[in-house]
């Protein structure tokens, strides 16, 4: 048998794909928590050029910890980009398919896609409104270089300063108990304010001993929780304090099953530069507001007028087996493809996001190693508030 730890989203770990030492030429990037992961016995894997924890033992236990209690992820590999300038709002009106004009209060966050002129998705990101002349983006790790090149290129005419915040680490603390665990570590004076902060909002706070934190009520698991930014020098302190508070460390493997159950897209797998938001169930993130000339708008309007040829749906496998990326999906209106597929630890069955031709699919079957297994078309999320989503 082939021991592929991670077939799709992460490059396969082969026998000669050992962790690389710093003196080797093509070294993998490490977050400031790398040593902490290794001390906990994490199985490490190369993810987009970063040496990241895949699991700390059992990805299923980590998954359940996030659904039922609290788990934490080192997401320091993600790229934080601060944008400063008098015309930064104008710049973002142009750059993003969602409208930053929805951001009216400081600290508000918005999920948005950055498109090319063909309407294809360059990346998905979160943008925080921190001041009239100061916005913060968080973009994906694997797309870092192309994103930065694109953002810098588009920013130049607006005289917006693009500052990459490699000085900060990022932790996601997620799960029904996650917020209280973190709030317990905050300075007394910040606790009530953080407890009251709404979803998709962010604010500064201090952890005990005065460590400054950027606290956002966002995440990628379908659970409540926070994403935290902290300077590199204090990241290990924060990680250890959360461990001591009983938060379960969780790796990329659990992060992937959690986000899939929540029906959240993974860039590079569920959409890319050849897929429009209409074809990736991201139409809700496109704001066709009056007179805003964002990049890709013409292509999106044209595709909408002509009819979108493909759409993304959720699938639940009705027979035995596991849905996997790349499997062929047979529908009454033609063939489609599984994008993200996995076993769902919460539902104990196989689930997937798939792209299929537009139209009424009828009875859907998936080709799993030459056998056609029935699947049901559903509307994600597969799991909501720890329970099966509506109609799952």
């Amino acid at each position, binding site marked *: *048998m082939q021991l*592929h730890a991670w*077939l799709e989203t992460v490059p396969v770990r082969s026998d000669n794909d050992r962790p690389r030492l710093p003196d080797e030429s093509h070294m993998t990037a490490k977050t400031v928590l790398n040593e902490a992961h290794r001390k906990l016995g994490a199985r490490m894997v190369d993810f987009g050029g970063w040496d990241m924890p895949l699991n700390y033992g059992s990805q299923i236990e980590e998954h359940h910890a996030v659904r039922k209690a609290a788990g934490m992820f080192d997401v320091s590999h993600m790229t934080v980009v601060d944008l400063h300038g008098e015309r930064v709002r104008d710049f973002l009106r142009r750059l993003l398919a969602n409208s930053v004009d929805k951001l009216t209060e400081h600290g508000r966050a918005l999920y948005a896609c950055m498109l090319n002129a063909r309407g294809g998705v360059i990346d998905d990101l979160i943008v925080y409104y921190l001041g009239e002349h100061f916005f913060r983006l968080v973009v994906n790790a694997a797309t870092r270089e192309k994103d930065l090149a694109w953002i810098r290129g588009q920013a130049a005419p607006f005289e917006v300063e693009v500052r990459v915040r490699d000085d900060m680490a990022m932790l996601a603390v997620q799960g029904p108990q996650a917020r209280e665990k973190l709030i317990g570590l905050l300075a007394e004076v910040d606790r009530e304010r953080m407890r009251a902060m709404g979803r998709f909002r962010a604010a500064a706070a201090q952890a005990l001993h005065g460590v400054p934190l950027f606290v956002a009520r966002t995440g990628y698991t379908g659970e409540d929780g926070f994403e935290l930014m902290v300077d590199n020098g204090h990241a290990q302190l924060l990680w250890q304090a959360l461990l001591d508070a009983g938060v379960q460390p969780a790796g990329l*493997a659990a992060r992937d099953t959690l986000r899939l159950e929540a029906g959240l897209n993974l860039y590079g797998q569920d959409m890319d530069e050849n897929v429009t938001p209409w074809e990736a169930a991201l139409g809700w993130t496109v704001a066709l507001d009056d007179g805003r000339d964002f990049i890709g708008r013409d292509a999106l309007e044209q595709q909408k007028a002509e009819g979108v040829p493909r759409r993304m749906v959720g699938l639940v496998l009705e027979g035995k087996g596991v849905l996997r990326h790349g499997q062929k999906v047979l529908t009454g209106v033609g063939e489609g493809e599984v994008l993200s597929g996995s*076993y769902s630890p919460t539902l104990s069955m196989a689930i997937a996001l798939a792209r299929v031709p537009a139209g009424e699919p009828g009875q859907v079957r998936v080709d799993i190693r030459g056998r056609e297994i029935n699947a049901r078309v559903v509307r994600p999320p597969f799991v909501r508030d720890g329970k099966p989503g509506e109609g799952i």
Partner: protein
Amino acid sequence: MSEIPGDLKFLKSHEWARLEDDGLVRVGISDHAQQQLGDLVYVELPEVGAQVGPDNGCAVVESVKAASDVYAPIHGEVVEVNSALDDGPELINTDAYGEGWIFVLRPDNKAELDDLLDPESYAELIEGEED
């Protein structure tokens, strides 16, 4: 890592074979393999009566994120499959050399077992992998 039972023989690709008293050969995957794969969630068993061998995958073990083919260490006919794995694939995680066996075959030629790795050689092989 748990102790490797002395009566097992191994393929380099991490399958084990055990010659039973009745002349049949029981097959599974190694404890090292299950650790590398992580939590198993589905096992596709071979058909009883199928002719199998080390050249073609005859079963599939799926962990949450990956599917891996399982090869028969020697040629033979499948005479029994572990249907307990249908509802309990995690048996391979908890007891790879015992309750987690996958199938039993009637060997075409028992002497093929002599070509497999003994426990010491297999232990050396996986130690090399972990360096």
